[in-house]
């Protein structure tokens, strides 16, 4: 879990081997093998998990991919909202930081 500010170049990933989930309608029950907790996710949060399962993202690249996935504009889904969702997932351990994206010097 990240504490404090999240840097723009940090890479994030969701590791499917750490949880199992079951879909009931639009709701997903996701059981974390790490914490033993069950999480109830809606179609928004599961979409973010799905993106982070496919590949690691930095916050800017995630925001872009997330808006594309949800077919919404940056006005509807500003980076701050993406960041907050990312924090929600991070806080409960459903995603993890896997490094930093090298910044061109």
């Amino acid at each position: 879990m990240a504490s404090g500010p999240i840097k723009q170049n940090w890479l994030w990933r969701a590791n499917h081997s750490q949880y199992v989930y079951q879909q009931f309608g639009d709701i997903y029950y996701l059981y974390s093998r790490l914490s033993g907790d069950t999480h109830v996710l809606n179609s928004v949060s599961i979409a973010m998990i799905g993106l982070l399962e496919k590949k690691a993202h930095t916050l800017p690249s995630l925001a872009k991919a997330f808006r594309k996935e949800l077919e919404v504009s940056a006005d509807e889904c500003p980076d701050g909202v993406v960041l907050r969702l990312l924090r929600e997932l991070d806080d409960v351990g459903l995603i993890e930081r896997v490094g930093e994206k090298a910044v061109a010097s």
Partner: protein
Amino acid sequence: MVKQQEPEQNFVARRRELLKLGAAGMPMLLTLKASAAQPVHSAFDCLISLPEMCIMVGEDGAAWIVTDGAGRYDAGEAITTSTVNSFKSDASYVVPAGTVPDRYRSQEDCPDPCSGGGGGHDDEDDGWGDNDEDDGWGDEDEDDDCSSSDDDDDGHGNGHGHGHGDNEDDGWGDHDDDDDDGGEVDDAICKYKIYCYGDNTQIAPGNYVSESGNWNISGDTGLYLVVAAKYADLYGERGNFPGVSCLLSILIYLGQ
């Protein structure tokens, strides 16, 4: 083609509305703690602390669960129709027929309807007091098969004397139409059984799962697991059935 796209469009629209709520600050996920006390590192380690509760099992395998006011019931009490009605009225949760295995249903023999001191109604075709025939003698309780005190097959005496003035089911002015022969025979005890759990009864569902992932249900706590599993199957997390979060975690883990 349009029809095929419609559900997808609906989904996208719903998700967009959800996102608006998320942007407004609504959490997009909810965490159900396996244990309130500490994090758990195994799917099977979660522990359920039950509140005081009683489960009444019906003869058809339905179950009624009382949590509030469970102290009013006792697993050892002799169940009457009144108890059953009260329990059903107090029940916070109900699961349908067929849920509970036979072994948890009442194994009591139904009381002999003739043992309630009734008498007066033979099953013999004496043509007098019984209601098997339209003899016009007025005994109204058609369900009784009780024999009168005299077992002789004389075709007369039994029942003959009932028609007037006695206080039995002769239909002549006494008001005990619903009870059998004046002695109330309550067969609730052979149709229902009550199980109760004390406050803070702790159940580790993982202990009931074999290495192969099969459930080995036994004992009174096994009944709770059966009912909770059914509830989880029917309603998921909704309704907050005690301990269902822990159980659901295991069920999901097992893919059941």
